[in-house]
């Protein structure tokens, strides 16, 4: 880097006075930008402001876009029906860049600059975990749609809730009875060698054991891997079911190479839809998945027995019968997760109404009112299905779908019961001070 003629002198051009003045003017402009304006307190007739922490950029962008669409549809539906406590709801959106440090700043920005009533949104676990301390310090309720077990683990704080989507521990546990009864008793797991994979690694074996089945091998694949062929010989020959949860762009290669490895004689395959959210199931290379099964939070494809609430939800969000954006069949939604945004906003509405919420001074009341919730009935507000809510661990429990890939579509073949996903609470947030 250092050269003999001058360190860092990438160009001999020097700063002109005019350039410097322009720079200083721009700097002053930045300092006076709207960000510095003090915002006044919301009045009682002013809209309820919900800070939406969105993955607009970064690895979670596909989710972020659909989370925004779903949330905007829910807010419109809530406003059309009179809002919350007679007040309109307004979403204030900030990009967290799918980055935990930026996520924490965004929470601070909502609390201190935008003065939103609550913070809502976001999927990726590391962003939720990174942002949780900021929510606790600002004492601002933070409703996440992340499906991670981190909220229910009670390792975060009293201001973090996950009332609109079940957590991964519960999801895995409720898959076990079906796998053991229908797919096979000898299961080999293939998962990415990081936290998302570890949830599956840790929670599946005990759940299967309780059903008389066993995990006979666990194959962790490093996150840097781009080819998987060398791992397949580690799959024991007696394997009856391959349980796979690969995520990210590598999933297409993974499936293709698995297909090449097995040919037409393969064990049963069971996966989590997280692998293929926003990915067309008919993409080249995914043919091998035909006949295999997947967990789905909410079904991507319209089902013959869809409830009226489910149909209305899909229409409001703007997804067609194939789970793609209306008018753009290539824009595949993140249907398994995004329903959680819709349902969470209705939980917020219910809790705010129960608390008689008027403004930020009632945030503690809102926390207690949310903790007091017990059940959410299936219907327009909860189109995915009925749920129960455990106020001690701030986590909801609900039904899960198991779908079969058939003719290039996903057909729901089994719905689990809420009880299948219940587990002993690991702590109690309500003992923490508000």
């Amino acid at each position, binding site marked *: *880097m250092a050269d003999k003629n001058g360190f860092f002198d990438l160009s001999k051009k020097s700063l002109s006075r005019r350039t410097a003045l322009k*720079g200083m003017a721009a700097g002053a402009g930045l300092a006076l930008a709207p*960000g510095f304006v003090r915002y006044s307190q919301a009045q009682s007739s002013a809209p309820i402001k919900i800070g939406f922490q969105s993955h607009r950029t970064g690895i979670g962008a596909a989710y972020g876009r659909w989370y925004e669409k779903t949330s905007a549809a829910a807010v419109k539906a809530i406003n059309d029906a009179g809002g919350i406590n007679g007040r309109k709801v307004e979403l204030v959106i900030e990009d967290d860049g799918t980055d935990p440090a930026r996520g924490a700043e965004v929470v*601070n920005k909502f609390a201190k600059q935008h003065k939103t009533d609550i913070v809502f949104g976001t999927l990726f676990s590391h962003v939720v975990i990174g942002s949780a*301390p900021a929510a*606790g310090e600002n004492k601002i309720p933070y409703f996440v749609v992340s499906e991670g077990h*981190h909220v229910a683990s009670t390792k975060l*704080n009293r201001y973090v809730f996950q009332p609109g989507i079940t957590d991964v521990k519960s999801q895995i546990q409720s898959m076990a009875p079906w796998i053991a009864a229908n797919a096979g008793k000898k299961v080999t797991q293939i998962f990415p060698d990081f936290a998302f994979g570890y949830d599956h690694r840790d929670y599946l074996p005990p759940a299967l054991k309780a059903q008389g089945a066993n995990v006979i091998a666990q194959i962790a694949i490093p996150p840097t891997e781009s080819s998987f062929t060398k791992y397949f010989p580690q799959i024991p020959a007696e394997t009856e079911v391959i349980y796979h949860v690969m995520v990210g762009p590598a999933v297409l290669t993974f499936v293709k190479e698995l297909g090449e490895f097995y040919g037409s004689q393969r064990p049963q395959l069971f996966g989590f839809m997280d692998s293929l959210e926003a990915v067309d199931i008919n993409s080249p290379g995914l043919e091998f998945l035909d006949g295999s099964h997947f967990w789905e939070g909410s079904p991507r494809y319209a089902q013959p027995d869809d409830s009226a609430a489910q149909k209305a939800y899909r229409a409001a969000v703007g997804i067609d019968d194939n789970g793609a954006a209306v008018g753009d069949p290539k824009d595949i939604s993140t249907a398994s997760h995004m329903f959680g945004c819709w349902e969470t906003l209705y939980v917020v509405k219910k809790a705010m109404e129960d608390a008689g919420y008027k403004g930020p001074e009632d945030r503690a009341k809102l926390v207690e009112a949310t903790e007091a919730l017990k059940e959410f009935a299936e219907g327009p507000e909860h189109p995915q299905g009925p749920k129960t809510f455990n106020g001690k661990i701030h986590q909801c429990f609900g039904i899960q779908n198991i779908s079969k890939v058939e003719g290039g579509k996903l057909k729901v073949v089994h719905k689990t019961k809420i009880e299948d996903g219940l587990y002993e609470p690991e702590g109690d947030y309500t003992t923490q001070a508000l």
Partner: protein
Amino acid sequence: MRDASPAKTYALHIVVIALLFALNFVLPDYHQGLFARIMALAVFAMGYNLLFGYVGLLSLGHAMFFSAGLYGAGLTVYHLGWGVPEAFLAGIVSGALLALAIGLLALRTSGVAFMIVTMMFAQVFYLLILYFAAWTGGDQGLVIQQASRAIAIGGVSLDLTNPTVRYMGALALFSVVLLITLAIVRSRFGRVLVAIRENEERTKMLGYDTVTSKLIAVITSGAICAASGAAYALLFGYVGSNFASIQYSILPLLWVLLGGAATTLGPLIGTLFMYYVTDITSGFTSAYLLIVGVALILLVLFAPKGIMGSIRERWLGWLP
């Protein structure tokens, strides 16, 4: 660099510190918090600048020193229940020891090879964090609970989650590191570092032990970056592998280039500039990184020595 009286130089730095102190009382709440984060990260940039700016060693692996501090402090609080001062010290020691080991190996190379070697070590460090996920929380990271982030001094408890305490904590660290950096670059040792940057062979020929000097610089730089990481964990309560990724090795380089390499105040200015450009532009467009990129290109084209570097070149030749 023209010589200036020590009084003038130190006065300037004291004024900057005083200004930052005063800002605590006038900044709106959100910006008070943002400034605390910027000051903590400016320490990271200052540590990086010591090696890059003054010694001319371009490392692409400084995220490992920052995260050594982050995890050194975070894990001792999380798993061992250590108090804040002990954990902070543990963070610095972790960074210094890591820098010693990395320095001994990486300093056998120079130039592009040094960049690659440091980047590879940082990648190893990052993957180790993921590998030991049972302790580190892997890619999800860990939360340091509010109750663990308080310092008891003579019966008074300082809660680091209080915005003012946090701001003052970050300012204290920033001020100490700024003055240490200033003292180093004004010292005989600092001159040797600059001499190494300008012409290592000649410095060697003049009788200086350049290898030892560079090693000391790597350790000091690593310890400062670790102090920043440790402070980050304790002030903001989150420890995650994201901070060990390549992105956090590139960021201090950008901050320093923007603010002005080999200037004591450049790292602060660069960090401040990048943070505010990101913060303000992200309110208008999701393509804010494009704007950041354009800003960087413009800077390289029109102010290749960074903001403070250009100011020194044009007007204030005595700036350290």
